[in-house]
Structures are given as C-alpha cells and as structure tokens.
C-alpha cells in the first residue's frame, strides 16, 4: 500500500518550495470554488426541475416567466464553474503558451458571465420584473445576493486578465502537469472532455446532495438505512473525482502507467460496494426516496421519473470501468 503513496511518485516532489506552496494554494482555491459551484449547481437544478415540470405539463409560458426571474441562479452557477476552470488552468496545461491563452479565455468568460448577470439584475429591477432588490425567494435577499455574488466574480475575472497582462511573456508559476486529455488524439480527447465534464457535474451534484441529505433527509424509523446509503452514494462521485485529480493526475507519467490498473480495480470495487448498499437499502423501503428524501432528488420532479437518480448512482461505476478498460488497453499495447 505504501508504494502507492510514496512521496517520490508525485510531481510536486520535483518542485521547489515556492512552487509547492503555489500548487497548494491553487488546490485549496479549487476546492473552495468546487464547493461554490456545487452549491449553485444544486440551486440551479432545483430551478431547472421546476421549469422542466412546467414545460412537460404544457405550460411553457410559466417556464419562460420562471426562467427570466431565476436566470441569475443559472448564471451564478456558470460563473462559479468557469472560475473553477480558470484556477484549474493556472494549475495545469501542456505548456506556458497554452496556459496563458487558456487563463485569458477563461478570465474573459468569468468576467462576461458575471458582468452580464450584474447588468441583468439591475435591468430587471429597473423595468419592474423584480418588485425590489430584496424581493425574496429563493432567499430573503434575492436578487441582491446574486448581484453581490456577481461583483465577486467580476473581480476574479478582472484579476485573472490583469495577471495575464502582467506576465504575458512567461508565467512565474509552472507546474509541469499535463492533463490526461492532452496526450490523446482529437476524437478521444472530445469524448474524454465530455465524459469528465459530465462526471464533474455529477460530482458537483453529489457533494451538495450529500451535505444536504444530513439536514434534509428524514432519518426516522425504517428510512434511516436508505438515508445513509444515499449519503455514501452521493459522496462517491466527488471523492472519486478528488482522488483522480489530486492523486492520480499528480503522479509522474511512469507511475500513472504503473498504477492505473490497480487503482481502477480498487475504484470499481468501492463503487460496486456502495451501489450494492444503495440498492439493498432501497429494496428494504421502496417509498423512502419520495417519502423521506424527495428533496435530494430534484430532477425526479414527477412520480414517474427515476432517471436522474440512476445516473447519479451508476456514474462512479462507469468512470471506474472506463479507467479499467484504459488500463487493459495500455497493457495490451505495451505487450
């Protein structure tokens, strides 16, 4: 076991002290932004589930009215997510030129979304669509809270752009970590990026979902087992994402090749255990999701759709299986 975590396996072991601190700081900022993105994503899904409900029930006019009112919720998620990408670009990239461009593009994206959100709220207030800046719902301070959140991200976007302008020749901070996708050919890279993005969304959902389950789920009596199983299944995706990001992607290239197979097998086993736990818990009480924990499944907006739940449950297993297949293919190629 110790050989998997030996210090010399990891890229940071090759960095000087200053670079290691910078690596740590960007990691922490990423975690904070991940939590922000997760929370705003969950909020957005809540709004989206209701809007979807209006559409499928034949009231698109209600959906449009709701979307116009709730747009700052959606934009709050997208500005958080792009800020997360922005910090990720600081951390990783195939070379400095690529990173400079990437940081600049993402900085512009953060600035644009947050700037638009800021203006949108003011305009909506000006034309009377919001009766006041603290009209209320979904929070007592809405939309003022969304306005202030935009200001924060306008500052983040501006800082990123100013940083690039200052260091346009050479970034002072360089960590030679290549995202896995950079090594692949175009079609593979596309599927990889799509898959990772989807997995990230599930992980964002899972993090807030798990946290909220503790407070929102009704743990009494026969429902308790299912509630605990839900917490584990929700935590699985963000923990696995963190593991691949902060453990596997930090490994030196030769160690990545060596560890991919055992890590993917371990990942499959863990996924299988928690998925089994989830279904055993569900089997013991089939009305638990809707009677005790309906709030944790926002997209399951009607009584006839279980798809969202199944996607969340199976994603960690799919990720593990894909990693396992990659490891097998790599082994075959080696031979």
């Amino acid at each position, binding site marked *: 076991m110790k050989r998997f975590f030996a210090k010399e396996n990891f890229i940071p072991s090759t960095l000087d002290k200053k670079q290691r601190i910078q690596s740590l700081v960007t990691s922490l900022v990423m975690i904070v932004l991940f939590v922000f993105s997760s929370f705003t994503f969950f909020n957005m899904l809540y709004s989206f589930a209701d809007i979807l409900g*209006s559409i499928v*029930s034949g*009231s698109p006019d209600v959906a449009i009215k709701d979307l116009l*009112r709730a747009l700052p919720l959606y934009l709050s998620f997208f500005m958080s997510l792009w800020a997360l990408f922005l910090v990720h670009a600081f951390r990783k990239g195939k070379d400095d030129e690529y990173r400079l461009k990437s940081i600049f593009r993402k900085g512009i994206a953060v600035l644009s979304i947050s700037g638009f959100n800021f203006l949108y709220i003011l305009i909506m207030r000006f034309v009377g669509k919001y009766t006041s800046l603290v009209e*209320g719902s979904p929070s007592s301070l809405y939309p003022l809270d969304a306005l202030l959140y935009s200001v924060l991200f306008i500052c983040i976007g501006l800082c990123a752009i100013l940083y690039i302008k200052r260091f346009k020749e050479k970034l002072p901070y360089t960590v030679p970590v290549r995202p896995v996708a950079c090594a692949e050919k175009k079609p593979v890279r596309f599927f990889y990026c799509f898959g990772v993005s989807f997995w990230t969304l599930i992980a964002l959902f899972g993090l807030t979902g798990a946290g909220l389950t503790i407070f929102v789920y009704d743990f*009494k*009596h026969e429902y308790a087992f299912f509630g605990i199983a839900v917490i584990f299944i929700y935590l699985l995706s963000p923990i696995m994402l963190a593991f691949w990001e902060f453990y596997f992607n930090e490994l030196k290239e030769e160690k990545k090749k060596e560890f991919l197979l055992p890590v993917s097998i371990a990942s499959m086993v863990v996924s299988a255990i928690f998925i089994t736990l989830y279904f055993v818990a569900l089997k013991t009480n089939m009305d638990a999701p809707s009677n005790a924990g309906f709030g944790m499944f926002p997209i399951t907006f009607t*009584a006839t759709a279980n798809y969202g739940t199944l996607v969340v449950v199976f994603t960690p297993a799919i990720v593990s299986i894909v990693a396992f297949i990659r490891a097998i293919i790599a082994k075959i190629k080696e031979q």
Partner: protein
Amino acid sequence: MNKKTILLSFPLFSLALTSCGQVINWNEHLDDYVFAMQYHADFNILQLTDIHWNVNSSTTRSKQYLDKVFKEADAHCPGGIDLVELTGDQFMLANTYHVKTFVEYMETKAVEYGFKYAIIWGNHDRHGLYSPNWLANQYRNASHCIYIEPEDNLYGRSNFVINLTPDGTTATTPVWQLFNLDSGASFSESPLAIGRNYDYIRDDQVNWYVAEHSPGVPTIAYYHIPQQDNLVAWNLIHEGGASFKHNFFKLEGFGDADKPEYKSKFIKTAKENGLKGAFMGHAHNVDWTVDYDGVVIGLGVKTGTELYFAHIDPADPKEELQEGLAKVNASLPVGEKIEEKFDLIGASLVTITDPEHFTLEHLYLNEREGANDFVRWVEF
C-alpha cells in the same frame, strides 16, 4: 483518529441521525387524531390546492394573488371563512425561506379573516430543501394551523379528523366529521425501476377512517392524490352512459396510482361509513367533480400560477374542454356566461349548510390589468 475510532464512530453517527421516539399503535390512540371545531349552519371550508411555491416563485407576487382569493372568498361567504383546507403541494422544490414565509402569511390571514387552516401533505411537499420533520414542526408550531402527526404506525405522515361539534370540544358527538388523509407521494416497484407509481390511500388508513368515524355522522374527506374512483366514474359516464351529475373540467389525467393492484378501498369503504364528499388536488388541469353514487368526488381548483395550469380558450374545439365549458356555463346565470379566455386557477368552497347537506362552488379568479380581475363562482 485511529482505525478503531473511525470504525466506532460510524455506527454512532448512523444512530445519531436516526430519531429514537416511541412509535404508537394508531388503534390504541384514536383520540390523539381528533381536533374539534364548533359546528354552525353554513360552515364554510375554502379549499386551496397545489400552490406550489418553489425556488422560481416570487413570494411577493404569489401572496398578492392569495390576498385576492381570500378577499373574494370572504366577501362571498356571508359568515366568513371558517376553515381553509390546504390539500397538498403547497411547496415543490422550495426551501426553508418559502416555508417560513408561507406559514407566516397563513397566520396573518388566519387572524385577519378569523379562520383555522388544516394541512394535507401532497407528493411534492416532501420535495424540498428541508426535512419533512422540520416542515411538520413549522405547522405544529403555528397557532392557527390544524396539524396532527403522532409518531405512529399508520401509513402517511399526517392523518387526522376535525370533528364539527355543537360545543367545539371533542367531548360531544360530532355533527360532521372532516377527514384529512395523507395520500403519500410515490414508490418504486423494484429498486431498478425506471418508473415510479403514484401512491394511494392504504388499507390501514381505510381501517383508521372506519375506527374514527362516529356512526351515523356524515363525513367529508380531503387528501391530495385522486384515487382510481375518479377515473372509474369518468369512464362510467363517457363510455358506460351513466348519468351521474358532474361538472367542471378534465383536461388531463387524474394522476392516480393507475394499476389495478393499487386500487384503494377508501371510497368504497368510507361510503358505507358516512362519506358524502371527497376532495383532492394533484392534477392542475382538472377540477372535474362527480356525484358518484351518493359521494361527491372532485378535484379542487388549482390555486395560483406556479408550475402549470390550464388555459381555457372558448374557441378551442377540444371535446373535453367544450364539455367542461358547456357544463360550467349551464351553471352560471345569463349575464355571467364565460365567453372569454381564462385560466383554471382559483379555489373551491364547500358550505356545510345543515347536519345533512353541503354545497360546492368553484371559484375561477384570474388577475387582469387594472381592477378588472376575472371572477366567477360556479355551483356544482
């Protein structure tokens, strides 16, 4: 933390999450489910249903609409509103802010108009960013709210009965009984099922009804999800040629637990035990009501503009819409016939006129520009 501590902390954490209260047998505590109100002739019960406050709602605007409904209903009832029945889905995808705001609002209106309000769970009331127990406590702690949820072995969160008695206490025999049942939310038939079934009133709830019923006393039941009887009655009229009295609109399915194995015994059994009326919500595009062999069964009018509701256009040739419109217009006096577009939103009013009879009216109330709101009271 060492491994031992971690292993020990897991079951402790699990235990901490579960509550350890004493679960009572419902049939040994029948008195715990009873609330009493003073009976009088022309006792007015306003039914609001499927208000659906959610993260996209403007509570400010929604309250403005509810203000108009209360004002209109109060003006319409000579003795004022006695009881408001909130028949489920007050919330969907809402959070604690919405719940607190709503309960505060209802308390304010209860004081203003002098009514009590009773709570029924809908499938979506559980669908929010709060614990169902927390929501129950908000209702329990509201002084004008009637809400009873013992920690029992009876299906559903909240089943209780409001006895309308001559002196307003539970000590005397009721003149009428108002049953409030939790018709549940939904359930999977198997762990891997893609679909989910809407819930239904279970056998133990039916037995509870029978046990709580005072022999010879007429009853009205309120719950959220229609049982299969609504569809049976509709089909008997439209396919079997039955001549039950019926009125109002059915512009979508009833949203019931539609498989034969989930047919509830409730209506059939309750009918043999005093049931005169059963009112529910759930399907927003439906307020169709039928006198099904002595029991008036009907959906209330959806309250407010959240999520979805039917837009009625008299020029729309759809058969079911025209049938509903013809029935409604036949119930309206000449000067009030509906010839303009309107939305199927508002409220429903049951007036218990005497110890044997009640009347039912549906209110269609749409906000319009200026002071020209669309208002129609339609008798069943």
